[in-house]
C-alpha cells in the first residue's frame, strides 16, 4: 500500500509545488498591486505636510520641516476648526452612547409587542439616504431654531448674552443643532450594536445581583456597564468615525466662521483657488485623518458584528 501511494504522492507534490509557487507569486503580485493603488494618494499628503515648498503635486520634499504643524497652532481658523470638530463630534458621540445604551438595553430585554416592529424600523431608518432628508430636515431645523431663539429673546434682553446663547443653542448655525443631528444620524447603528451586545449578557446576572440585594442602579453600574463595555466601545467608535467624517450636515447647518468644523473649513479654504496654502492644508488633513484612522484600527474587529444590522458602519 505504502509503496504504491508514495511515488504518486511525491509526483503530485512536485507538480503541486511548482503550481503553488506560481499561485503564491500571483497572490503577492495581486496584493502588492492593490496595496499600491490604496497607498498611492497618501504619498502626496504625507510628503507635502513636511515639505517647506508644498504644492499640489507629488514631489520630493525640498527639505523636512514641521513648521506647517506649528503654524497650525498659530493659525486661528485652523485651531478653531479642530476644536469645533472635537467638541461637536465628541459631544454627539457621548450623547449617542448614553441614548443607545438605554435604548439598546430596553430593546434587548423587553418582550413587548413593539420590539419586533421597532427592530425592523431601525433597519429601514439605517437605509434612509441622508441627502434625501436635507430639505425636510432643513425645515425642521428652521422651525426649532425659531422656537429656541424666541425662547432666548424672552429670557434675556441683553444683546450680547442673546448672541452667546444663540450661538450655543441655535439649530441653524449653532452648536446644539449640529450636535443633535449628528447624534440622531448615528443612533440607529449604535442602538443596534448595543442591543446585540446586551443580548449576549444573560439575564441571570442581573437577577443574581438583584437577589443579592443590589439596587437597580448598582446592578447597572457594577454588572451591566462593565459587561457591555465592548459594545459601548464598538458603538462609540462607529458613531465617532461616521460623525467625524460627515460632510453633509456641517455643509447644511453651519455658515458663520466661528462655527466651522474641519471638513467644511478645509473645503472652503480649498475652494479659494488663488490662495491655497498647501502646507497648511496638508498638515491639517493629516491631523484630521489621524483620529479617524486610529478609531478605525480599533473598530475594525467589530466591523463584522455590525453586519447583522444590515448596513455597514
Amino acid at each position, binding site marked *: 500500500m505504502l509503496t504504491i501511494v508514495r511515488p504518486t504522492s511525491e509526483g503530485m507534490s512536485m507538480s503541486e509545488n511548482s503550481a503553488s509557487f506560481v499561485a503564491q507569486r500571483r497572490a503577492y503580485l495581486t496584493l502588492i498591486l492593490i496595496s499600491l493603488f490604496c497607498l498611492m494618494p497618501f504619498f502626496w499628503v504625507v510628503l507635502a505636510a513636511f515639505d517647506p515648498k508644498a504644492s499640489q503635486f507629488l514631489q520630493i520634499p525640498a527639505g523636512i520641516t514641521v513648521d506647517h504643524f506649528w503654524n497650525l497652532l498659530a493659525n486661528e481658523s485652523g485651531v478653531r476648526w479642530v476644536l469645533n470638530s472635537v467638541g461637536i463630534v465628541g459631544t454627539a458621540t457621548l450623547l449617542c452612547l448614553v441614548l443607545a445604551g438605554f435604548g439598546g438595553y430596553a430593546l434587548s430585554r423587553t418582550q413587548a409587542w413593539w420590539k419586533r416592529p421597532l427592530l425592523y424600523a431601525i433597519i429601514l431608518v439605517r437605509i434612509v439616504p441622508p441627502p434625501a432628508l436635507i430639505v425636510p430636515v*432643513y425645515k425642521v431645523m428652521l422651525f426649532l431654531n425659531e422656537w429656541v431663539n424666541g425662547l432666548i429673546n424672552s429670557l434675556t434682553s441683553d444683546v450680547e448674552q442673546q448672541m452667546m446663547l444663540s450661538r450655543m443653542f441655535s439649530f441653524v448655525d449653532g452648536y446644539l443643532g449640529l450636535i443633535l443631528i449628528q447624534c440622531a444620524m448615528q443612533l440607529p447603528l449604535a442602538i443596534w450594536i448595543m442591543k446585540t451586545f446586551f443580548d449576549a449578557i444573560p439575564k441571570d446576572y442581573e437577577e443574581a445581583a438583584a437577589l443579592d440585594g443590589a439596587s437597580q442602579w448598582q446592578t447597572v453600574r457594577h454588572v451591566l456597564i462593565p459587561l457591555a463595555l465592548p459594545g459601548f466601545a464598538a458603538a462609540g467608535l462607529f458613531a465617532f468615525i461616521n460623525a467625524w467624517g460627515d460632510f453633509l450636515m456641517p455643509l447644511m447647518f453651519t455658515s458663520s466662521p466661528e462655527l466651522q468644523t474641519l471638513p467644511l473649513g478645509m473645503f472652503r479654504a480649498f475652494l479659494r483657488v488663488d490662495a491655497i496654502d498647501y502646507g497648511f492644508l496638508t498638515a491639517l488633513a493629516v491631523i484630521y485623518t489621524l483620529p479617524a484612522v486610529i478609531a478605525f484600527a480599533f473598530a475594525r474587529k467589530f466591523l463584522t458584528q455590525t453586519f447583522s444590522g444590515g448596513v455597514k458602519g
Partner: protein
Amino acid sequence: MIKLTFEARRQLGYRLMMAPALLLMAAFIVFPAFYAFSLSLTDDALLGFAAQESSFVGLRNFERLFGDPLFWNSLKVTLIFVIGSAVIGQFLLGFASALMLQRPVKYKGIFNAIICLPNAVPEMVVGFLWISMFASGEYGTLNRLVAWFGVEPQQWLYTFPLLSIIIVNTWRGIAFSMILLTSGLASIPKDIYEAARVDGATDNQIFWRITVPMMMPTIFLYMFISTVTTFAIFGLVYTLSRGGPANSTEILGIYIYNQSFTAFQLGYGASVAVVSLVVSMLLGMVYVKALKVEV
C-alpha cells in the same frame, strides 16, 4: 399582585429608556422622511414669493421631474456609479484581496492595514487627496504614472469625470468588501476543500464549484449593503466635482442638493428626495424579506 406591578413598572421603564433615542430619530429622520412626501406636493422655495407662502401644487413637481432630462441624467449617473464602484470595482478588488489573503502569504497584517486605510479617511480628505492625484498637467501624479505607458497628460476630472469618481469610490470601498468577504470565506468548512482535492478537483473547479456557490449569501449581503451605502453618498463626490462638469457626476444626492439649495426649489428638490427614499426603502424591504434578518 406585587409581582404584577413590578412587571408593569419594568415595562414602563423599558419604554422610558427607549423614548429619548426614539424622539431624536423621529424628529430628525423619520418625520423628515414623511415630511419630504408632503413637501414634494408644494411649490416651496428658498427665495421669492413661494418662500413666504408655499401652496399645494399636487403632482406638478413629479410631472416636471419625469420630463426633466437632468433628473434622468442623474438617475443614469447614479446607476453607473453604483454598478461601476460598488458592484464591480470594490467587489472584484475586495474579493481578490480576500482570496489572496486566505493563502499562506507573509505580511498579512501589513497588506490588511494598507487596504483598510482608505476606508478610514474622512470624505473631505478623500476629495482632497484625489484632486492632487487627478491634477492636470504633466506633474499630476496620475499623469506621471500613465506617462510610463506613453499616455498623454489628461484632465481626468474633465475628460473622464464619471470614471474618476468611480475609481475614487472603488479605492475607498475595497476594505469593506474585503472584510465582509473574508468573513464569508472563513465560514466555508475546510473539509469540503479537502474532499474536493482528494477527488482530484483543480483550483479552477474548486473556485467555481465550491467557493462561489458557498459564498453566494455573503455576496448577496455585500451587494445589498454596498448598493444602499453607495446610493447615499454625497460628500465624496461633492468635494471632488460638485456634480460637474456639466452634470456628468451629478448623482442623486447632489442633484437633490443642487436643486434645493443652489436653484432654491425646495418643493422640487423634495420630489427628487421622494424618488430616492422610495428606491432605498424598496431595496431595504427586499433585503429584510430575502435574508429573513434575525432580530
